[in-house]
């Protein structure tokens, strides 16, 4: 059984690993490959700050809330291991800031130690009058992709650099199942008017005294359009750009100024920070994630496609829950094709 995963960002690689971990032992014929035109450090995952935090409002698809929780629990169970830093995982605490009181988020019990800010906390942020403090996780895109690649390589999964032009090409090449993790570019394989780029730009600085994330919110502007500061393992990510429909992958000077001024105003100590990188990424924005099966017919055979794209700005936050769901769908494919010798493993 040949499985081709298209896409080598966090969704592609984690879905590949999840499926391989669960089905290789019961499906010895499993031959899995990853096709992608971009690998780390050139994927959108590499640009992401990596803070596990869902959007504030409840997702349109209630399953996404479960997937967020599953991802957090999974990563939390790994952050206490000796290997955590190698995987790109770390616990991080910090502040969400608002201009007015808002209800607690539905994920308040998923994260650790959630509380609202006291007046003394708020003294640090004169432009804001309300907020939350909690402990969450960061999963650094680049390190995590490298770790996933190592795990997949160990398992014999092969990687191919290629630009896939169509599902048909992959099907005619012998793929029985295609896992479509093409992110923001999914539309080039199959038109999807619901999918749009949410362009983001970030500045990475050397500011190792920053131990907390600080995320500001402006409901009028919308998500990610207000300054945010997220410390990573080595560098601190400064951001606050979200431009729907903008496909430009080039850094923009006005956006640089917006980010720099906004973040320095929020955290004056950043003025001394040295800039180490500036990157642009395209969030794959969609009203909800497309995570479903589709059967395509090419020549005389059916090819199963499992779509897993459209994770917006919360791909790292939700990736493992989606991978588990994709693995479930894969299991169903195997059942239907009567390929499983034993009952499917407990997921």
């Amino acid at each position, binding site marked *: 059984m040949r499985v081709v995963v298209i896409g080598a960002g966090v969704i592609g690689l984690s879905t590949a690993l999840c499926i391989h971990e669960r089905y290789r032992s019961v499906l010895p014929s499993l031959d899995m490959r990853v096709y992608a035109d971009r690998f780390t450090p050139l994927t959108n995952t590499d640009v992401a700050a990596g803070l596990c935090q869902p959007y504030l409002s409840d997702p349109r698809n209630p399953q996404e809330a479960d997937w967020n929780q599953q991802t957090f629990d999974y990563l939390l169970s790994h952050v206490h291991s*000796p290997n955590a830093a190698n995987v790109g995982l770390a616990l991080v605490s910090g502040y969400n800031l608002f201009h007015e009181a808002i209800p607690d988020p539905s994920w308040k019990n998923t994260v650790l130690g959630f509380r609202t800010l006291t007046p003394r906390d708020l003294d640090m942020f004169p432009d804001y009058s309300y907020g939350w403090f909690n402990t969450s996780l960061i999963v650094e895109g680049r390190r995590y992709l490298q770790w996933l690649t190592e795990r997949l390589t160990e398992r014999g999964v092969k990687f191919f650099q290629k630009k896939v032009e169509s599902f048909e090409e992959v099907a005619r090449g012998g793929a029985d199942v295609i896992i479509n993790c093409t992110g923001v570019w999914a539309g080039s394989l199959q038109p999807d008017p619901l999918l749009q780029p949410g362009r983001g730009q970030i500045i990475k600085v050397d500011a190792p*005294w920053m131990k907390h994330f600080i995320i500001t919110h402006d409901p009028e502007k919308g998500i990610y359009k207000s300054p945010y500061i997220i410390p990573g393992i080595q560098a601190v990510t400064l951001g606050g750009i979200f431009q729907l429909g903008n496909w430009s992958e080039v850094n923009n000077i006005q956006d640089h100024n917006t980010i720099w001024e906004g973040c320095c105003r929020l955290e004056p100590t950043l003025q001394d920070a040295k800039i180490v990188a500036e990157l642009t990424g395209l969030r794959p924005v969609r009203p909800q994630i497309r995570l479903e099966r589709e059967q395509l017919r090419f020549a005389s055979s059916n090819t199963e496609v499992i779509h897993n794209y459209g994770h917006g700005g919360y791909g790292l936050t939700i990736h493992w829950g989606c991978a588990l769901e994709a693995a479930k769908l894969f299991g169903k494919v195997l059942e239907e094709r009567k390929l499983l010798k034993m009952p499917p493993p407990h997921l």
Partner: protein
Amino acid sequence: MDPVRIAVVGAGVVGLSTAMCVSKLVPRCSITVISDKFSPDTTSDVAAGMLIPHVYPNTPIPTLKQWFRETFDHLFAIANSAEAKDAGVHLVSGWQIFRSIPAEEVPFWADVVLGFRKMTKAELKKFPQHVFGHAFTTLKCESPAYLPWLEKRLKGSGVLILTRRIGDLWELHPSFDVVVNCSGLGSRQLAQDSEMFPMRGQVLNVRAPWVKHFIRDGSGLTYIYPGTSNVILGGTRQQGDWNLSPDAEISRGIFSRCCALEPSLQGACDIREKVGLRPFRPAGVRLQTEFLAQDGRRLPVVHHYGHGSGGISVHWGTALEAARLVSECVQAPRTPTPKSNL
């Protein structure tokens, strides 16, 4: 009237902050800081500088709380300013964890730090051997940056800095009108305080930039304190031990205890061992004016030493107190008086 000539002996966190407070409080004085050691070679430089106070047996809790609050407020203002990076002061959150429920569930300083609360069950899962904990946000004041920053500001206000080993406080007579003794462990000799002894502490400085939270176990013998460029792992409390050379077996023990609390430290690199001798005084911090008299000579000395494990946590509060004592001293008439019994 000529400006009062004040000598501050000692250039650790206590000496430099006292010089600073004196320069602000006492008008028309000239200050000289004299020390044989400056950053990075002071005891303060070895300390992690976490603002979590220690209890001094003879100090009433309200006084201790005041000292801690004054220090916290002083450093908090720096942490939120553009000076934070140069001064080496930043906020850090974390956990203080206990293997059994402590007698005092809420310490006296709980409302001085930020966001103090009990740890939730979910948070305690990270520490399977521990049943209770506090979560809060406090400050870290890193002496290798803070001391040079203080020194720079002192020089900017006209304070003189001199490298000299003082063997006897009388050496400063008659060049100085008042001596402020911030010599820490050196007071054993300089103040003939035989009660002073070192409480040896060994630590490891490691590179582990993914550690963003502090972890302090119970009484504070084992701790993980993340700083700007390294994480400090500790520690030991060895009474009366003057040995400044690191002990390899102790280092292994510290590393092992810390990895038990934070397994990811196994990936730490660039491990460096350091030793500091905490200036321990059983009676607590000595903040007292003594009028030395000998052969008709008179020398007012304001003693400010004996901070043990808690120097950085209360340094600004005690420095303000010391500056007040200096101010009183300066205002007292300059006629010979018998040594007062304080």
